[in-house]
């Protein structure tokens, strides 16, 4: 398509899109004022019945846990797809000498300190999602940040030793299966799939909110290991 045709197409569709967008925005509720009935219901039910203080975690890992399970499976499938694709390509090409660049001492030291902090923060986020902002996904990606830092400091080969692919794969599957197993626990307890079957505990304590912290931790494992697998596959592509 020539530049002229593209411009004409743009001139036709841009105003139409702007008009539709303007129409939609004009019909919205006023900014930041509306509290829906669903929000008030969840806010009153979640702390009382599940002893959970982070309402978002209650929605994500309990009330709408089935949606989160779907998201987990999407992530699992995408990571599997990328890994399959990259390994297929890697197999066809002969391995050549490594051309990774060694990091300077300053980068190494900084990355090492932050790696430790990032792992601690990631585990904290994944384990405290039901008490304070955070949760499995956030904790998982924060843990991944640690692995990115480690990779920057130490390079691909040492990262393979730090986080061996087989272990990472096992962790990812364990996370995904753990979510499913906790969900099946609800069925075994005599209720619905993903029913919160564990005792709710005391409000504000680490073992409160029933299955929410367990699911959160499983999600954290799956997310961290899934992204780690992506990172290591990408990094190995770079090595050849």
């Amino acid at each position: 398509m020539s530049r002229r045709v593209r411009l004409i197409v743009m001139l036709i569709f841009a105003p139409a899109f702007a008009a539709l967008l303007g129409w939609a925005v004009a019909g919205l509720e006023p900014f930041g004022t509306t509290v829906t009935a669903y929000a008030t219901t969840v806010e009153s039910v979640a702390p009382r019945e599940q002893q959970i203080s982070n309402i978002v975690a209650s929605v994500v890992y309990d009330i709408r846990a089935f949606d989160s399970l779907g998201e987990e499976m999407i992530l699992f499938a995408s990571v599997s797809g990328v890994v399959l694709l990259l390994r297929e390509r890697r197999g066809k090409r002969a391995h050549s000498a490594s051309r990774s660049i060694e990091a300077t001492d300053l980068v190494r030291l900084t990355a090492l300190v932050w790696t430790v902090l990032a792992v601690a923060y990631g585990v904290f986020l994944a384990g405290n999602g039901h008490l304070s902002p955070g949760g499995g996904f956030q904790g998982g990606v924060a843990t991944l940040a640690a692995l990115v830092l480690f990779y920057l400091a130490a390079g691909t080969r040492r990262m393979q030793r730090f986080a061996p692919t087989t272990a990472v794969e096992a962790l990812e599957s364990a996370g995904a299966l753990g979510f499913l197993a906790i969900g099946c626990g609800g069925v075994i307890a005599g209720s619905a799939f993903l029913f919160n079957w564990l005792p709710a505990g005391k409000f504000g304590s680490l073992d409160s909110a029933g299955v929410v912290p367990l699911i959160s931790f499983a999600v954290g494992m799956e997310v961290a290991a899934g992204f780690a697998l992506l990172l290591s596959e990408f990094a190995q592509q770079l090595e050849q």
Partner: protein
Amino acid sequence: MIWLQTVLLLLIAAFGAGVVATHESRNQVLVLTAFGMLLSLEFFAAGAPDVALAEIVVGGVALPALIMLALARTEGRHR
């Protein structure tokens, strides 16, 4: 707090346009990361710290790291 969100939303619009207007890929990743950080600030200002945390780590670490790795790979092939 409305002024804070107004400033943030204007900055987000500016940086969003900036991402599109940047043509050199490596610079584009940096602008994209800054855009992600602004988004997370806006999420925080809008009262969604959970989403803000996720955006900080995804937009600040995972996305630029993967794009940079992919760029390094493809640029190495052209040389």
